[in-house]
């Protein structure tokens, strides 16, 4: 299936400035599996931006599936669907 992945600001530093890409992945891939896939693709720097030393999701990272932000560890077991959009972002700021 095909999904869209978007990378914002500091995450773009890990993806060599790819802002957005379409990825073809296995059916039923979960969010955490996608993260593993992206880590393999872009290096551990990508993963380090997501998790604290204690392997908790860094509260300053936003993972958004479609319009929904994932906050709990359980959320990472969420299975992705064809056509989903997943964003990796630092906190969204406005107004500068």
């Amino acid at each position, binding site marked *: 299936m095909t999904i869209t992945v*978007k990378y*914002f*600001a*500091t995450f*773009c*530093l890990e993806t060599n*400035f790819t*802002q*957005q890409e379409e990825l073809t992945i296995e059916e039923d891939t979960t969010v955490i599996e996608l993260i593993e896939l992206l880590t393999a693709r872009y290096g551990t720097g990508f993963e380090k931006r997501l998790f604290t030393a204690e392997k908790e999701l860094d*509260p*300053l990272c936003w993972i*958004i599936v479609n*319009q929904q932000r994932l906050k709990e560890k359980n959320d990472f077991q969420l299975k992705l669907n064809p056509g989903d959009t997943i*964003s990796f*972002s*630092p*906190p*969204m*700021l*406005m*107004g*500068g």
Partner: protein
Amino acid sequence: MTKESYGWQGRILWVDLTTEEISTTPLDKELREKFLGQSGINAKLLYDNLEPGVDPLSPENHLIFGVGPLTGTLAPCSGRFTVTSKSPLTNAFGDSNCGGHWGPELKYAGYDHIVITGKAKRPVFLWINDDKIELKDASKLWGKTTNETEDQIKEELEDEKVQVASIGPAGENLVNFAAIICNYSRAAGRTGMGAVMGSKNLKAIAVRGTNRLTVAQPQEFSATVSDSEESILTDPLYEISSTFGTPAIMRMAQSLGFLPTKNFQESTFAGADKLSGERLLEKYVTRQKGCFNCPVSCNRYYEVTEGEYEGTTGEGPEYENLGAFGSKCGNDNLPSVLKSNDLANKLGLDTISTGTVIGWAMELFQRGILTTADTDDLDLEWGNHQAIIKLIEKIAYREGLGDILAYGALQASKKIGDSAEDYVIHIKGMEYPSVDVRGTKGMALGFAVSPRGADHLKALPLYEVAPEVYQEDIKKELGIEVGEEYWKKYETKPELIAWHEDWHCIVDSLGLCKLEGIALKPLRPCHFTELLATATGWEITEEELRTIGKRIWNLERLFNAREGFTRQDDLPPARILNEPISTGPSKGETLGQDKFETMLDQYYKLRGWTAQGIPSKETLKELGLEVE
């Protein structure tokens, strides 16, 4: 210098351009203690010395430059100064804050404020060389860009270290949103301070200062400075600010559905990725640039190396510039935005108003209110970047349609007639920045009640959109619990906005940059009291300091009340107030007149203002602002 004036230099410079009289007066202790410095004392000097009803472009208007007690010290991000005057764009209180290196130089020359009145008989520039002050002939500089002016003044004075704040052709031609520029790209942009300067035949102020600046408790000050720097450098958002600067906001605004597009007809822009901070860094940024003593250096140099705009170089742009010349005009051509930004800086235009006015003209063209017969055959189709660049020049030189747009969208709409005014997105005559505030209720309130018109910087409540980052601070400092999508809510926004306004009055009066103080997280009220105490010897509590912020805020409000501004002038235009956002993630979001007015009532009450938005006698008494 007396011990009493550590931090401040203790002098106001008065320059009457009509009589060419130049004098200094001491900066009163009472003035310092009640209004702190920079924007606060500027506001007080303007309020006390300007007759109500004065034409902003007449010799009677006052143009006031000011620095704060921390400007030019070792405190981080302390390169700021403020220019204050009655605004020709709004006929209301006008001020504009600027970074770079000019402010510290004024301080080293030995002055906290300059008050300029009258009008010179011929173009002049003011040359402040410590105690030697001269008005020098600027006939040869008239017509030059801000870059050329800066270079030529340095050459004439044979000193590379001279700091120059100047106007370009836009200020000379009295464009109501002309800016004052220093260090080639740092702008006192909003509210038309450059036009006031032009109306006085004052092309530039060149400053060179060699006085020492001493602080009251050097060791303690140094420790507080280190602590403040540490807070900035370890702030989780430091990397974003210092790597991307504000352009990082572009795709975030798009994602949240707050990106004004085609003059606020839409709130997402298909070309946002092409205008992004990420794209800018990848393709065009050559190196970083910072203001005086700033560990963040959020600004950048850029260069376009191929295509139609090959050879374009410049500094910036901020997110606001990307929005103004980009999405607001339906333009996704980033090199053209970089060209527009550079051109606006050189011609001395406020980029926000310029881009927004052009976007508005494009909507009038879309609706047939303007045709090629009105535009000197310019095709104002959305995204026509060549036309945008042409219009920037026409505005600065007041040619053709540019001569009308130079008044600012609201004043221009009266000249164009028809239904042109319906599409002006403004408050008090100043055009909106690049946030569609229908989705962010607190920002909507902040923009509305700002004394200088639609303005994101007086309140700048970044807490509102990133509650997770700030929730502990919001709870501790404001007692507000934030929930999901806090930005959409009306509740607690009056408190949130008032808190930010008060503290930003303090940041702007101390001489610090608000991006690093309060707006983003690093510097907190405790840093301000400690920096102030150790720099000046003045021990003050956070509560007392905030009261000074409140006093300044009320004084600016009072200035507008004296000029006849009321509640009606705090209302957003119909599109923002009543039309729901039509596209994107914030689709359907609207302010709603009733809900907005209820929030406004709550805000007035909290402020101790009447239902018409006028500070009550009791409030003024409480703040020591009693007026006849």
